């Protein structure tokens, strides 16, 4: 079975997405069970694939049995295996977390929601595993369409946020596609591995430059890099919390991962000119600072976290732009860490809101006494985002910091430090209010003895908070086992 894991990771949720609406015609509970089963199976397949890959090296799957430049292939190497596990694992946690809320929906809506959720996941998983640029576009569009619908489910204002995202997302997809078109016109192939070979003699051609620039701009929109982040705050703030938790954690990260693939695998190292990378780096540095400053100005907690994501994506791209093995290690580790901690922050904030109704910073006064576990999880993840030592966030930021000092890029160092300090300010004011703020009068009404959250919501939040700490302790293993294997491509630089 393990030999088929690469294809099953994507195909199982995709097939289940067509099964779920049919199951919903019978009963909402059945639909939910099918969906959960499928995501769990995908996560298990991702785990199996990752274990096998760590042991025996990369796995490939040729669709239709056709050899790569003619057919489509999936490639699982340690890094893409880890990304797939991250996406599928988050899929399981968030599906469990969403349970109590979705259960109140009508039966057919329940089915449509779960089908859409599965489609979003299979789209993201397909983007991670595919070795073909056009196939990546198709799966990008699957995940995009699914996410527009899921965001619109939030409220009436969410429909406008979703429409704006749809327009920008389509521009992103189109730019990406046009960029792929340029590369295809110049090389005649769509396969990533084949492109690497055939692009090598073309380094410096204006066609390649523009094609890659279009791809980078498209991906930058999808990952909300600073001047192109317009869609993100509204979409995150108005979408249902479980959806925000999922897309904040993994969707932008998958785009960042694809950017890594394109910059460091598809392009010949000589083709990524330092000038172009430096430009990207300056944009990323601006993003890091601007995102943190804008987060400081927000009163709504979800919106604050959304702007914080803009800043953190800047950190990741800065690592890519520095381009040294140390910086790229930091950036890849930060992709993983940020996914876990931002997911934890959003889900914990959702838990606090579920329990106390607090959505804005001033409303968090005394929240710790009423939702102690959610606030504790929020605090742990906040420490990690700021970069306090025992937690995961410290290590990735440390790599980035050291790399920027090594390269003598002082402005980047400054941006990183500033973003950490600013995030300490905007996150700890929430934590401080939650623990030391005077609780509003109606606190006495909180039912003593009643569970803080339904178990289904509590467990994912607790698991993610634990993961923040565990990832911090295991960071050395992640770097040596997984990330180091993605770096040989860099040594040639």
């Amino acid at each position, binding site marked *: 079975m393990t030999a088929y894991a690469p294809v099953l990771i994507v195909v199982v949720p995709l097939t289940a997405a067509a099964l779920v609406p049919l199951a919903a*015609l019978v009963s909402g509970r059945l639909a939910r069970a099918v969906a959960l089963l499928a995501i769990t199976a995908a996560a298990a397949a991702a785990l199996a694939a990752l274990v096998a890959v760590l042991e025996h090296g990369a796995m490939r*799957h040729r669709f239709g049995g056709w050899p790569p430049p003619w057919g489509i292939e999936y490639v699982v190497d340690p890094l893409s295996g880890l990304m797939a596990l991250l996406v599928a694992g988050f899929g399981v946690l968030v599906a469990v977390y969403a349970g109590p809320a979705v259960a109140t929906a009508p039966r057919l809506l329940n089915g449509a929601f779960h089908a859409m959720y599965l489609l979003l996941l299979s789209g993201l998983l397909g983007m991670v595993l595919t070795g073909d640029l056009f196939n990546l576009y198709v799966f990008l569009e699957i995940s995009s369409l699914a996410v527009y619908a899921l965001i619109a489910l939030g409220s009436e204002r969410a429909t406008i946020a979703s429409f704006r995202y749809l327009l920008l997302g389509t521009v992103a997809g189109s730019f990406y596609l046009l960029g792929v078109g340029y590369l295809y016109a110049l090389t005649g192939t769509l396969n990533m591995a084949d492109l690497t070979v055939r692009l090598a003699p073309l380094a410096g051609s204006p066609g390649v430059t523009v094609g890659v620039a279009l791809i980078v701009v498209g991906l930058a929109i999808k990952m909300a890099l600073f001047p192109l982040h317009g869609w993100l705050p509204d979409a995150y703030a108005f979408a249902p919390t479980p959806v925000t938790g999922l897309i904040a954690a993994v969707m932008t990260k998958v785009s960042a991962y694809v950017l890594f693939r394109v910059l460091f695998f598809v392009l010949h190292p000589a083709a990524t000119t330092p000038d172009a990378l430096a430009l990207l780096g300056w944009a990323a540095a601006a993003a890091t600072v601007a995102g943190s400053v804008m987060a400081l100005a927000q009163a709504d907690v979800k919106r604050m976290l959304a702007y914080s994501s803009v800043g953190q994506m800047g950190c990741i791209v800065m690592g890519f732009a520095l381009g040294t093995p140390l910086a790229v290690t930091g950036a890849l580790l930060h992709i993983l860490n940020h996914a876990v901690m931002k997911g934890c922050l959003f889900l914990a904030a959702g838990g606090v809101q579920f329990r106390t109704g607090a959505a804005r910073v001033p409303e968090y006064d005394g929240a710790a006494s009423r939702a102690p576990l959610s606030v504790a999880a929020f605090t742990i993840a906040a420490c990690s985002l700021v970069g306090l030592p025992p937690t995961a966030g410290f290590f990735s930021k440390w790599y980035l910091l050291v790399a920027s000092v090594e390269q003598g890029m002082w402005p980047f160092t400054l941006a990183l430090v500033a973003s950490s300090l600013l995030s300490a300010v905007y996150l700890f004011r929430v934590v401080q209010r939650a623990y030391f703020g005077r609780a509003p009068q109606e606190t006495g009404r909180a039912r003593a003895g009643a569970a803080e959250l339904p178990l289904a919501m509590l467990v994912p939040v607790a698991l993610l908070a634990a993961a923040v700490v565990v990832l911090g302790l295991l960071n050395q293993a992640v770097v040596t086992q997984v990330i180091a294997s993605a770096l040989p491509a860099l040594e040639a630089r």
Partner: protein
Amino acid sequence: MKQPFGSAVLEAAARLLAPFVLLFAAYVVSHGHSSPGGGFQGGVLFAAGLLLVKLTRGDPSQWEIGPRAALVLACSGVLLFAGIGLLPLAWGGSYLDYDAPPLFADPVAERVLGTVGIEVGVALAVAGIILLVFDALAGWGEPERSA
């Protein structure tokens, strides 16, 4: 779509056209192999034929495919495609590797069969979705009605 557009002329025209549109849809799907055509085009034509009747006769028409049936149609189309893809895995082939199951001696014949199979799946899915979207868009004034 509660109010039909109906008039004697439209109805006569639709009556005459609809069977031929559906027949042509079947032709386009089955001949995608050797001439321009295929699942998408055929599926759209199939849905268009049904919608023509719906537009002229209003909702409770003889050939009504309701939102629920359309959903079933769409899901089964996708399942047919994905199922054909999964089948070869049982014989040790790759996903969508049509000639892995030992049905005929001639691998090309198996490939043709697989291709036609997925085209039919695509056609079902497309037809179902177009009917579904039309229903959702046309019935937007009455949200409780659709599905």
